[in-house]
């Protein structure tokens, strides 16, 4: 509950932030703190330097790029996402954001923090994989954009490495999206989460079953372009067997396999039905 000693800096610009993150080996970016402060309280990890991003207004905000495509600043909070007009262009974003934990967490928690911490039970990683999002990262070497498939690398590990900052997430045009989850209590931690998007082909991403979101590629191939209930159900059959999920107090590996199959169908049907 009590943190180790740490140093703190509050940069005024992205450049300054990058400078601080690169200058110190054990530096971490502090966004909303809804994951990092917890981790530090438990002393599971103790960065040497916290680089507070709260003054970096250029990392906030959502822009509607047209035809259901949006660009989201990494420091945009879940509450902002849920209430933002531009984000409304891609309604699944706000819908999912508003089911994360509670008001206090949503007010501080950022989409950037949610994806960079990449806790396997976080909602945004599978959602953004299904939406085929791309992630813009800035470091001392400049700026680069990474597709979702290459962004999530492992538990708490993403392509935004030491000395780098995720600045924005871009979502290509679309709108047939669905999200299905079984959680511990309402708006609780995910037991299994599945996101689906139909955008010239089905994309199905499963959360809570591995270190990173898992694409259900076999299922996507089997579905092809036939999104009927029968096709989707048939395609989902056997999905569980391809997964190697963890067992814990909330679910056995078998239960997670089973839920993945059921929720994959539901997410996809929801995507199909979205108006």
């Amino acid at each position, binding site marked *: *509950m*009590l*943190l*180790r*000693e740490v140093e703190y800096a509050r940069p005024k610009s992205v450049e300054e932030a990058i400078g601080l993150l690169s200058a110190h080996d054990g530096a971490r970016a502090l966004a909303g703190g809804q994951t990092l402060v917890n981790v530090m309280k438990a*002393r599971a990890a103790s960065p040497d330097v916290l680089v507070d991003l709260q003054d970096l207004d250029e990392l906030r905000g959502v822009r509607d790029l047209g035809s259901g495509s949006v660009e989201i600043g990494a420091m945009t909070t879940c509450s902002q996402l849920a209430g933002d007009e531009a984000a409304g262009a891609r309604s699944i974003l706000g819908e999912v954001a508003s089911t994360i934990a*509670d008001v206090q967490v949503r007010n501080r928690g950022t989409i950037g923090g949610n994806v960079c911490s990449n806790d396997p039970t976080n909602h945004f990683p599978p959602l953004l994989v299904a939406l085929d999002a791309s992630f813009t990262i800035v470091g001392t070497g400049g700026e680069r954009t990474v597709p979702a498939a290459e962004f999530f690398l492992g538990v708490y590990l993403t392509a935004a490495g030491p000395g780098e900052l995720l600045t924005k997430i871009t979502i290509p045009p679309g709108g047939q999206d669905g999200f299905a989850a*079984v959680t*511990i*209590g*309402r*708006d*609780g*931690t995910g*037991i299994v989460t599945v996101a689906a998007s139909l955008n010239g082909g089905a994309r199905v991403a499963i959360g809570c079953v591995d270190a990173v979101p898992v694409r259900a590629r076999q299922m996507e191939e089997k579905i092809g372009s036939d999104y009927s209930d029968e096709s989707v159900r048939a395609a989902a059959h056997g999905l569980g067997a391809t997964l190697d999920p963890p067992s*814990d*107090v*909330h*679910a*056995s590996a078998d*239960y997670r396999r*089973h*839920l993945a199959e*059921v*929720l994959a169908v539901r997410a996809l049907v929801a995507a199909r039905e979205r108006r």
Partner: protein
Amino acid sequence: MTETETASRPLVVAPGETKPGFAGTSIPRKEDKRLVQGEGVFFDDVKRHGMGYVHFVRSPYAHAKITSIDVSKALELGGVYGTLTGDEVAILTDPFFELSVKPGADIKDYALAVGRVRHVGEPVAAVVASSRELARDAAELVEVDYEPLPVLTTGEEALKNEVILHDEAGSNVVWQGLFDWGDYEGAVAEADHVVKIERLHFDRFSSTPLECSGVLVEYNRGTGQWTMHGNHQMPGIGAIWMAPALRTGIDKLRFVSQDIGGAFGNKICLHPQYVACCLLARKLNRPVQWTEWRTDQHTANAHGNERTFLDIEVPVKADGTMLGLSVRALDDCGAFPRYEPLGCIIWAQVTPGCYRWRNIRVDFTQVCTNKSPVSPNRGYSRMQHLWLTERVIDLVAQELELDPVEVRKRNYVRADEMPYETPNGCVYDSGDYARALDIALELIGYDELEARRSDVESRGKLLGFGIGSTLDSGTNNFGQSTLLNPELQFSGNNEVATVKLDIFGEIVVTLGTVPQGQGHETTASQVVADILGCTPDDVTVRAGHDTYWNSHAGFSGTYASQFAVTGLGAVKGATDKLAGEIKRVAAAVLGATPDDVELAEGTARLKAAPEAAIPFMGIGAIVNANNAILPEDVRDVTLNCRHVYVPPFQLPDKERKFGNLTLTYAMQVHTCLIEIDPETGVYEIVDYAAVDDCGTRIHPQIVEGQVHGATAQALGAATHEIFAYDEEGNLLTPNFYDYHVPHALDMPPLKTGYLESTSPFTPLGAKGMGEGGGAGIHAVCAALQDALKSRGQPTVWRSCNPFHQVWEYLRDPSRTVEVTKP
């Protein structure tokens, strides 16, 4: 929707009677004004100059030898005031008093682990520093070497005695005994069938009060007095454990609390950490403060009893009449018994549950395991047993294909049988269980059940309907402890209150109880106001409890559903005495006899001539400052009256294990509708009703609030709340992230109803209530059982049924119940 009523002043109150003036109405709570402004005083709010903060170094192993402890690096850290280890504790203190007979009696339990650790989180050493953060830092510098030992995580494993937790005891069995009342074999001979259930398991959970435990200890070197600002909810027993351990007198231990953030029984066994803090305060010559972290509370404070029921046999008639019960019970009390083995008898307060069967046999064993010690958690020991009886009647109804409502009514103790003596001599004071069930059925819309079921099934889901009946036995006869250990010198019960009239006419009450949100200040003032003919606003009840100032007795505290009986009984007794004294003074001054005097509108006045009135202020002034004007025979009046309420108990019969163990029996019936998604095992409680009967309700809103809260806790325990362990003895749910309690969105729509079956045995006709007997757990299990009827009738065998468990039932509907011929 609850409403607040403020009654107007009652005019005239006859002596010794409490008319329904303020008692029975929901007046505004006195506690609220400070609490809604954040001006409550919880122990962590109290500060002392120069205080040190304590952090406990805790065992990461479930079972291990401690081979060495080195605190030197911790002591070198700037800001560290000192440390304490088990070696010091073993020298400076004596082991805590054990309640059991041998072998349990030989267990050595100290404030810190001595030589060995027996559960993850057990305190091994303590560090004190100038800030919370530094204490935490220093704790990391304490080096402890362990030699791991094999771990016992189930009662069944512990029973084998292959790995022994307490060498001095030589066995993991804390207590063992056979309870056999009536004629079980005769019941079998008379039966048409014997329903056999292989195994039922009541899971480990606890009420997890939002405020964690803690204490701020000051030691007075001149007098040897320890003052503890903490949240111990039963200082009476706390002192009984701590004083001999610290080799001091009970009066040297002063417990002070004002506001406590919930306790639910989890703040009864704080004595180990408290003793450690007392030793530190004395050793370091400064106040020391310990605040328990949430993780510590879950890992190492107090769990509810975990109980396995085996070889359950129920002889029944074809019409569902239950004739008897035979069961083997195995209770897992964790690493140290502490308040145990009282749980091995306390269930016997409700031996037959709500039912009329007369032939009951329970073979009860309690064992230690490498898990957190247990403590009396809300519903203590009765909840586990009542869950058993509810699972039994539910499965009997199912197996005999009888209507669950009819079977319950057939077996319920009847209203016209009250007071009802149970097979082991307990007396159910009053109640109308069948009528309570009818109300619960009406509230849930039972008549529309089948229509609702079709609608739910048309949506591809399963609907389940469940009933949970339960009892809240209140006001213990502590003589029941002698049925476990004939050497124990405990019996009866008591509670104390004082009421005084001060020089300016202020009425001041002190309570022996330790409230944690039950509104004692308010309900006490209602009772006093009705007797003295004033208003609750005229009555000041001291907030909280201070053993230095509040009069108290051996069993004082707030626990076990008894305040309305014992606490208010003491208040009534003291106020009656005060009323008598006020009248004697008034009579002397007005030249009349005390019978001519009545108390009304804050005055003592002549019944025949109400204008001849002396305000209370006048009475107070005369006795305190002007007593020469009183005749000799009235000068003994002090206007400071104390009453010890002693319930009418006898010693139970140790041979037959027979006798009245509790004074009152409140009752609740809950009905519940759940919808299961058969594809996932996910279920939702879609409708819920709770009916409560606790006799005369002094403050209906407070009673209803307790019903709401107990329901929420039971629903949590039924669905997600479980203290689960892995094979190494690590707790898998050590905080609110994994141990999911109900939040606002998790609660079903809740309808409540009530009955008031007055108790013939108590001063106010009220019964203790508040624990709630786990009715929600019983109802949800029954609803699951019902919902799964069409899916192979799997036996719902455990109390906590998370989604993955329901999926298991659906996937593999194994039945562990059968109907046999006798």
